């Protein structure tokens, strides 16, 4: 998610270089997620992992992955507290089990994957990417995953693809500042568009395919299951009704800070950022889960990775029922394996705990394949 804005390739740089390099910078904070499986199922997680798949290879990679003493692979993610949790939950235990050492880099960057693959000098072996990457559109850049090793049937529906498998889910939802709403609770996205009932600034991510169009459509009465293909004109007409009150955010940190400070009364937010506004910053912020998008971060292997096999084994291990929830001990982000259990203290704040019939799902392939058209319409509207 949210790798789009690299706020460090700073503006004063000579412009022509931009296509070749983008610096790291805004570290998007992916959000809290949880398994949808009932907690009872996970009581004997590793046992169900073995039986659910029925494959001895699978069971073995979950509990006793192959040893590779002295081998080093490179793991790249979004940095910060998020990568720290992956380090403690995934990388360190895996090193102890197998002897594999991890070199880490912070700052996932799709453009760097592309340039490494094109140059034939791939140094990244495992990359944590957002939901807009790893689809067929990027087939030239990625290794297909080995589903003889990875337990596809245990992963949440739609979160395991040819080139990517989700390692954690999060929600794109609404947050509101309780001071600004004077104690009133927005019932859903229709209220988000009601400036009479809830005066104050509105926050949206300034990114055409990040959810803004979909939220407008759902506020306008579109069924969350009937969003695609997007009726962009209808969405923009709806957004027009509150356009003057929208203050766009470019980075997750901005959304968190502005909802906490009351600059926003209501905002679209990645639920991890909403959680941090409330629990880390101690601000009067609450979430509205109705019509949230349940989405995920994914693991991919750049094409030509010299450590492809080890990377594959690691990804299989990290998505096993008995391992996939490990990072949730260190950060309120949950697993994607249906049979894994997140840390109990965070369950109520997890996106998956709040899934109901109003929950929406991004059609990632549609959004990527039609990005140019959607973005062109959005940009033409937003800058008017």
């Amino acid at each position, binding site marked *: 998610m949210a790798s789009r804005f690299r706020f460090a390739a700073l503006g004063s740089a000579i*412009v022509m270089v931009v296509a070749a390099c983008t610096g790291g910078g805004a570290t998007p904070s992916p959000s809290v997620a949880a398994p949808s499986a009932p907690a009872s199922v996970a009581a004997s997680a590793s046992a169900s992992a073995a039986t659910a798949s029925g494959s001895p290879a699978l069971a073995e990679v979950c509990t006793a992955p192959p040893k590779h003493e002295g081998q080093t692979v490179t793991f790249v993610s979004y940095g910060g507290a998020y990568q720290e949790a992956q380090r403690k939950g995934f990388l360190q235990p895996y090193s102890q089990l197998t002897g594999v050492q991890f070199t880490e880099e912070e700052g996932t960057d799709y453009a760097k994957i592309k340039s490494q693959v094109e140059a034939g000098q791939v140094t990244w072996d495992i990359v944590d990417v957002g939901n807009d990457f790893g689809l067929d559109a990027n087939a030239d850049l990625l290794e297909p995953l080995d589903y003889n090793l990875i337990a596809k049937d245990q992963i949440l529906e739609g979160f395991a693809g040819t080139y990517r498998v989700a390692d954690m889910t999060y929600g794109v939802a609404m947050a509101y500042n309780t001071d600004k709403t004077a104690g009133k609770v927005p019932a859903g996205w229709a209220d988000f568009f009601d400036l009479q009932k809830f005066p104050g600034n509105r926050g949206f991510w300034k990114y055409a395919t990040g959810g803004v169009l979909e939220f407008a459509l759902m506020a306008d009465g579109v069924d969350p299951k009937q969003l695609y293909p997007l009726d962009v004109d209808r969405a923009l007409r709806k957004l027009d009704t509150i356009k003057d009150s929208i203050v766009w955010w470019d980075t997750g940190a901005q959304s968190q800070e502005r909802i906490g400070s*009351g600059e926003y009364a209501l905002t679209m937010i990645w639920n991890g950022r909403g959680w941090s506004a409330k629990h880390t910053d101690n601000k009067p912020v609450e979430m509205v889960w109705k019509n949230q998008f349940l989405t995920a971060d994914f693991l991919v292997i750049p094409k030509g990775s010299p450590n492809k096999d080890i990377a594959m084994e690691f990804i299989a291990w990290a998505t096993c029922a008995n391992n996939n929830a490990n990072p949730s001990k260190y950060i309120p982000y949950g697993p994607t394996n249906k049979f894994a259990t997140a840390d109990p203290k965070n369950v109520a704040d997890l996106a998956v705990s709040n899934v109901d019939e109003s929950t929406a799902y991004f059609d990632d392939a549609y959004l990527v394949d039609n990005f140019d058209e959607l973005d062109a319409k959005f940009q033409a509207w937003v800058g008017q």
Partner: protein
Amino acid sequence: MLRSDRPAGGPIVNRWAALAVPAIVFLVIGFLVPLLVIASRSVTEFPKSADHSLLANYQRFFAGEANVRVLGNTFWIAGLSTVACLLIGYPYAYLMNLVRPRVAGLLLIAVLVPLWSSLLVRTFAWDVILRDTGIINRTLIAIGLIDGPLPLLRETHSVLLGMTQILLPFMVLPIYTVMRRIDPEYGKAAANLGAPPIRAFVRVFLPLSLPGVIAGCLLVFVLALGFYITPAILGSPKNTMLSEFIVLKATTGTLDWGLASAMAMVLLVLTLVVLFVASRFVRVRDVFGSIDQE
């Protein structure tokens, strides 16, 4: 070094020229080659579903309503920033030139300090100060001067404020450098010949300081063309600049480097056009040449 200094029978190429080799190598590898790669990508790399003709990326760029508007906006904002920097920077440099060296040093430090702090930090600081719930609006509301927040942020003026603060040193320094070399005797001579101070300034000092003005304006203008974070944070989507689109195309969705490269080339070519037009009115060589005449 004068040519006659060269020992007879010595190498045709001055030995000192060898010192320039690292810089030349760096420019070729670090600038010229990437530029050629970008130029070539802009006419050879296309999304699978798109037209593959030579200029397809350029056609896609100019077909986009938002692209053309943002391109125009980029030059407009860069131009305004240049004017704003000049209006503040010229009197500032003039003042630096008037006062005692010790005071001039302090003024110099004052203009340089912003260069030492992060652009992002300064930009976000403006955001916090100017926002609806920021200190200015809150204070004005608290003392009853206004009922609701003033639109201090998300307007062209807030973008200009942020960009001018960042770019000002690049205007002040070239102007000050040139002013310092203007012989004060010229002013006295003008006065002796009967020119009142204003005329002496307009007819003597101002023309002599012009190379610095032009160097500063070119520097600020070209740097401003590449901005996008400051307009994104302090402005509204109406103030979006082209670099933001280039990054968007280069790093998201389908990694459309062909279009991103075409955008970069359009910006580069238009910038060269501006420099060319400027060179019709001023001798660019004088501008840059003036720097090494000391």
